[in-house]
């Protein structure tokens, strides 16, 4: 929206409000009395997120949650990784939120880019991998090891997919005799 701050309904009395320094309580300027939470605008420098489909002009079709569109509008630079890149994608064809290419600076083809998370309509989260991730996240040493194995020691996305995305996901059942 571009406004510096905005009132929201709710969040009063929550522990969430206590830990946010970008949310305050303020009175309605028209009646001087009625209190609500007021949140400061977030303007990320860079946003990176994954989507089902994008075209070469940066138009993006992504899932149901509108947060990706809001994020794209709010951020100064936007990088979208997409399962599939097509030549042309229109709003009519979008399956959920549609992000006009105007907001997007770079599009990257990354099949299974959401792994170990899921990508709505295409694949669910990799629960076994998630369990390993959660276990590794319990302490710094284990997490450093996780990052080394799954991020730093991996040459590129293709290698990540080859090594860590379950084979059944990558190789759909072949026809008999194929």
């Amino acid at each position: 929206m571009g406004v510096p701050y905005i009132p929201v309904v709710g969040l009063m009395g929550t522990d969430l409000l206590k830990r946010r320094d970008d949310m305050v309580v303020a009175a309605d300027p028209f009646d001087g009395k009625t209190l609500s939470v007021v949140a400061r605008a977030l303007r990320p420098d860079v946003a990176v997120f994954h989507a089902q489909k994008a075209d070469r002009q940066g138009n993006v079709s992504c899932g149901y949650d509108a947060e990706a569109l809001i994020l794209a509008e709010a951020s100064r630079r936007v990088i979208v990784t997409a399962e599939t890149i097509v030549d042309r994608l229109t709003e009519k064809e979008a399956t959920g939120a549609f992000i006009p290419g105007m907001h997007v600076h770079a599009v990257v083809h990354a099949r299974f880019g959401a792994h170990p998370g899921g990508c709505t309509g295409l694949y669910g989260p990799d629960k076994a991998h998630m369990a390993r991730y959660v276990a590794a996240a319990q302490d710094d040493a284990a997490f450093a090891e996780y990052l080394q194995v799954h991020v730093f020691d991996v040459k590129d996305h293709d290698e990540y997919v080859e090594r860590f995305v379950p084979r059944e996901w990558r190789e759909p059942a072949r026809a008999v005799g194929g």
Partner: protein
Amino acid sequence: MEYNESELLAVLLSREVRDGEVSACGAHSQIPAAGLLLAQALHAPNAELIILNTAFTPFRTSKPFHFLAQRGDLGLFFVSGVQIDRYGNYNLHQLGPDPDHPKVRFPGGYGGGLIYYAARRTVVFRTEHTRRSLVEKVDYISAAGATPPDVLRLGNPTKLVTPKACFSFDRQAGVLRLDTIHSPWTLADIRENTGFDLGVGGPVPVTPAPSAEELRVLRSAVREKMLIASPAYAAWARGTLVEEQSA
């Protein structure tokens, strides 16, 4: 008639829906979704349902739902939390005495802290009725039951429904009170399994049990609808709603 706890909860929640209102539940909320569809099939044919992230939502994204609620147009919302306390607060964030070093971390409240203040009525439900889930005070307040004076609030929690009992939210006193107990549980059972004072003096009425008609419709027409709602809802319906044999 026989029924499982999920079916019991779906029936009890369906009774909260009013005809002609906009009623909604969140994503991953199979029990209230079944309740909404059951209400529409039985007594609320003009209820407008929003079951987020399924075939039963008028919106393609989540934003219009939150804005509709903020405008005051959401009549009823069903929500659950890991912990619910006596004061109507619920917790979807974390467990542990130190808020900065939680023992367990959950996905968080999403729009919960907003919707709790915006929906005209919120009915909280919990599939587990134990001392660890119904507590005196939650470890972390994701959404607040009470409203300080002069604060903008459009609606409030009205009830808590569990597989053992129903509680109503007394807005004056700002506390939940035991309302009815489901057969076969007793007041002693409820006392033993609830981590807060029940606020009752005398005998407590029995919750009217699911009727044969409510169960029949739940297991036929509603079950059919859940199969097309989304893959996750279909899997739940197949596993949980006993398929009604045709007459």
